[in-house]
């Protein structure tokens, strides 16, 4: 191992994996520094049987569905991470200890896992529109090219349907979508019948592009419709960042150092010294590099930068998509029994675009319920457990869960602040505040009411709207916004941290605006662009 590393990438999540891959493919020496918590639980082996088959025959299924210690049985209000099933819960391990955050208004999910938040990502790969990319602060042409690169690397399945302008935009390198299930075929059929009517009212429905392969790629098999996607990454058909990092670790110009939490950095005479905390021993360790690429997520990177620049008490902005759950019923599907060979991921995307210009739109996606188990919804029903069980067996085939998301823009009422905390191993913690304006609340409320109204016309009847805690969408951005001016706690448009020469941020920290469409595909495209920029500046 060298004394001075050429390129250090911090974090193994979606942006870290893509940035590292771009650098490694360019032939330079790359070191990834990461805490890299892995699943040591007895649910780590992927489920290789179909969901129904597992339910009927696998005596060890409880390890996946409720957890061997019952850790998947969540009692009470829906809280952050409620969707994270026992085999994926390691993604949040040690977070409260090493990267504490306190807030009464914001409840984010962070990860120190090997693969970061990508461990539990819903795999939706929407392209941002030109208008959105401009508002975010990204170069439109380069991002479009980067979308292609990322799509070819991770494998995306999609359909060029009537909502393609909202889902895949101009993307060409994708595989065919996996077939949708009965619930979603019903919605698609009804939508197609009255497409002109819906589109006239600014409502578009299309297949959700997913980072799931339907044709094999090297080391990965085509999706087999096991319907165990909430619990397991069988056949690696769904892309996860750790798949890429595992591949990179086979290369001679890539090195992975796990167990280290990067806390801060300092730059002197062209060398960046990185301070890390060994999470096992509690010791401080130093690493040196010529180029540092932070990819710890918008909250993680902001934490490192604030600490490095001595910005205790300084507020940095924050973006996060407000979102709601809208459970819906399809009466014609009641009593239809279970469906075998089913896709477990989100299947349809719904767009409300009142202006018709794909800017500032709201997005929803929908899942059918089968593989999420009755116990997760039984307490939401006004029945005793015995009768609720009997009724649910008839009702769940007609249950569709919509998740509606809204865009977010900066405001003085949304911020992070690093404050001192003697109990934290790093001596500090983040304090967060997130408050929507009354106008935004009203607008999102009206859009969700529109979803409710339109879904009824698709014979899919919303039964309630569940507003979630802010931050629970797990979409964070905008903490170190792009800026042409050389201001501290801001990034230059090429991803370099202002007032530094060799420190870059490759995640969503630079976004000046957060469109409603999930950000992961775009933050990976940005990570590729930032890595290219670093290479260019070093060439």
């Amino acid at each position, binding site marked *: 191992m060298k004394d001075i590393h050429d390129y250090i990438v911090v974090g193994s999540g979606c942006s870290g994996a893509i940035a590292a891959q771009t650098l490694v493919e360019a032939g330079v020496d790359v070191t990834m520094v990461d805490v890299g918590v892995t699943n040591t639980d007895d649910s780590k082996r992927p489920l290789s049987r179909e969901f129904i088959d597992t339910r009927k025959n696998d005596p060890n299924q*409880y390890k996946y569905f409720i957890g061997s210690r019952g850790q998947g049985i969540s009692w009470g209000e829906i809280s952050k991470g409620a969707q994270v099933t026992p085999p994926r819960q390691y993604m949040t391990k040690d977070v409260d200890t090493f990267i504490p955050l306190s807030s009464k208004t914001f409840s984010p999910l962070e990860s120190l896992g090997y693969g970061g938040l990508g461990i539990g990502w819903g795999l939706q790969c929407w392209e941002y529109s030109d208008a959105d990319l401009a508002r975010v602060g990204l170069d439109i042409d380069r991002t479009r090219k980067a979308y292609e690169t990322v799509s070819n690397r991770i494998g995306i399945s999609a359909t060029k349907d009537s909502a393609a302008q909202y889902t895949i935009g101009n993307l060409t390198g994708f595989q065919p979508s996996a077939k949708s299930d009965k619930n979603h075929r019903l919605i698609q059929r009804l939508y197609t019948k009255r497409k002109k009517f819906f589109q006239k009212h600014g409502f578009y429905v299309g297949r959700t592009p997913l980072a799931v392969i339907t044709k094999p790629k090297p080391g990965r098999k085509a999706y087999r419709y096991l319907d165990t996607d909430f619990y397991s990454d069988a056949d690696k058909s769904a892309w996860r960042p750790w798949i890429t990092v595992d591949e990179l670790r086979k290369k001679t110009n890539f090195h992975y150092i796990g167990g280290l939490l990067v806390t801060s950095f300092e730059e002197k005479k062209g060398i960046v010294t990185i301070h890390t905390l060994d999470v096992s021993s509690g010791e401080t360790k130093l690493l040196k590099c010529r180029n540092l690429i932070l990819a710890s997520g918008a909250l993680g990177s902001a934490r490192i930068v604030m600490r490095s620049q001595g910005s205790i008490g300084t507020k940095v902005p924050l973006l996060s998509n407000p979102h709601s759950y809208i459970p819906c019923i399809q009466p014609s599907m009641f009593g239809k029994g279970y469906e075998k060979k089913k896709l477990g991921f989100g299947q349809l995307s719904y767009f409300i675009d009142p202006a018709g210009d794909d800017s500032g739109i709201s997005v929803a996606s929908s899942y059918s319920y089968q593989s999420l188990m*009755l*116990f997760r919804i039984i307490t939401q029903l006004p029945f005793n457990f015995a009768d609720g069980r*009997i009724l649910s067996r008839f009702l769940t085939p007609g249950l569709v869960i919509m998740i509606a998301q809204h865009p977010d823009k900066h405001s003085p009422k949304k911020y992070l602040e690093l404050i001192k905390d003697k109990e934290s191993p790093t001596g500090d913690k983040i304090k967060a505040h997130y408050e929507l304006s009354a106008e935004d609340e009203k607008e999102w409320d009206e859009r969700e009411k529109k979803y409710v109204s339109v879904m009824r016309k698709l014979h899919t009847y919303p039964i309630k709207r569940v507003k979630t805690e802010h931050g629970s969408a797990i979409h964070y951005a905008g903490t170190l916004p792009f800026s042409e001016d050389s201001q501290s706690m801001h990034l230059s448009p090429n991803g370099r941290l202002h007032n530094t020469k060799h420190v870059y941020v490759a995640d969503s920290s630079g976004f000046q605006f957060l469109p409603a469409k999930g950000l992961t595909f775009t933050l990976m495209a940005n990570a590729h662009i930032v890595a290219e920029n670093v290479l260019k500046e070093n060439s």
Partner: protein
Amino acid sequence: MRISPLPMTTEEEARIFGIYIVGSAPSQEIINRYEKIVRSSSVNLTKKETAIISFAQRHPRLLPAMDAYAAIFKPHLELRRRLFIMFAVLEATPKYSEEFLPKDRGILYLLTIAGVSLRAVFRVFLGVAIMGYIGVRR
């Protein structure tokens, strides 16, 4: 009314809850799993919570009505939490999978739904009376 400690072990309680939810006594393996989870997530019972669980253990035939009442008026009762744990444990077991998986509608589909719904409503009314007797107010 007089508050007594819980008259039964968690094992006996598991048996009662299993019979209530799926109609048959659960195996020892399921009982052990239930006990482990209840123990690992144990909470300090208030006098009222103790009274409710104690009553349910001593009168298992009235458990459905107590649960029906709680589902509407007291959803966060410890009794409900324990039933919920047993529900989840049973659901994640091959032997009972058919009792939880989606069911095809047969000829009596609508009658079954109507009958079970009516029974559920009746149980709520009965539950109001029972919980009133124990001293639980809405």
